[in-house]
């Protein structure tokens, strides 16, 4: 089906703004994930990682 130029532009604008919204959603979701990581990450990461020593297994 043929669409007028203005309809195409509208559709294009709608897609762009949908993309921008999705990107914003993703960024804010990542931000809240990072906040969560900050709240549960061991305070002394250096020592936490250094002290995790295992005997080899299988």
């Amino acid at each position, binding site marked *: 089906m043929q669409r007028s130029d203005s309809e195409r532009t509208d559709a294009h604008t709608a897609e762009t703004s949908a993309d921008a919204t999705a990107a914003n959603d993703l960024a804010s979701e*990542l931000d809240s*994930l*990072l906040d*969560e*990581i900050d709240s*549960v*990450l*061991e305070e002394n*990461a*250096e020592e*936490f*990682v*250094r*002290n*995790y*020593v*295992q*005997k*080899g*297994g*299988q």
Partner: protein
Amino acid sequence: MMAVAKVLGIETEYGVAGGPDGDPITASTLIVNAYAQHERRRVAWDFIDETPGRDARATASESFPPAIEIHLANTVLTNGARLYVDHAHPEYSSPEVRTPLEAVLFDQAGEVVMRQAMETCNATFDPAHAIRLYKNNSDGKGNAYGTHENYLVDRAVPFDDLVRGLLPHFVSRMVYCGAGKVGSETDESRGYGVTFQLSSRAEFFEEVVGLETTLKRPIINTRDEPHSDAEKYRRLHVINGDATLSPVATWLKVGTTSLLLSYIERHGVAALPPVPARPVRAFRTFARDESLRVTVPTSAGEWSALDYQESIYELLEGYVEREGADDVAPLDEVRALLGEWRRSLDALAVSPDTLADTVDWIAKRRMIRAYQDRYQCDPLDARLRAIDLQYADLRPERSLAGRARLRQLFSPTEIVTAATAPPRSTRAYFRGMCVERFSESLVSANWDSLVFDVGDGPLQRVAMMEPLRGTAALTESLFRSVSTASELVVALNG
């Protein structure tokens, strides 16, 4: 005719830290004992069937068979699993199940068991001595421990065909079932300046085929301990996989492998992609390749990990459409598995980050990259290594996999139930029900038998050499009709 049902299971050695004296064997023992106390049933493991030195190859080369450690804590659970101390780790060996999806459920049930054991244990100590458990495969310092898969395979398939047919899959499946890892732990990968790997295990592999599991680890392990009728079956013991936290990744890991085994049983290996010229190098190369574009040489050109997976997918998709693969799972599950596999390969080719809810290495990398961006830290910063470690942390208040929005396949209730109720689909039902109902008369148990003390006369051994005997369908009414172990043994002998 149905090929041999691909009965399967997953065993995981958990990382362990803390404890009253800092000794991992003490901590692992406390974990196993705490769970046995929590379940208030204690059934010993029976070692009569253990021969880890038996080699699938007719002529075994010089190698060091794994030692069995009889004195360490060892118990059988009401869900049919084995919980014990292996080397210096607590290990959960899931009950054997009938389909890949069930394997996911009972693998996650193992996390519940370990978490419960950890909480029971820690309730009795000073918090400074709390035990912590991790579902991962290495400590970041070169010490590795395993997550092993087991598959029932037709004994008639030549072992060389399994090697030939499985190598292309085993070196490349990490694209969707790698756990991911910050940094590197061997001189070789350090030499490449690696900051992130798809697989946590790959760099520890040194041989193509062999019997060892702790030294010179081979991509294909030849341990030949069927725990069932050895004339009919082989138990393929797969040691090259990562511990996965994402249910979908676990499903793909065992589901694709089961399907490939089913195909090889019926059609051999002629149509499978070529083996890499140097399989160990290919396995490690793919692990270091975040671009998913690097290729390795074969006798038939250059192949990337995705090339291998595309080729194997196409072969198995056609196979399922023609023949169904009911030895792996009902058609609905097999089709859903193929759909997930297809979706994963498509996304990996163009936008891998969209798989952050199903692929562990991508979920982990997403956290690490975002953290690195926010704090502008070095790619090997201790905080990024801490994220890597806490991804696998079983403490709910510290777990990062628990915060990664991973897509779930089972409800929390289903998973908690599977920690105590056995699968209905295999002999694990019979084992688990006997532990649940008759633990006081059960002297010992293992994968293929149970030993009862019914009071008078000799101990009674009940053999379970057929993994698909002892299912709920076959024994549920028997369990309803007996009230003591003695009645059970009489009914079985009658």
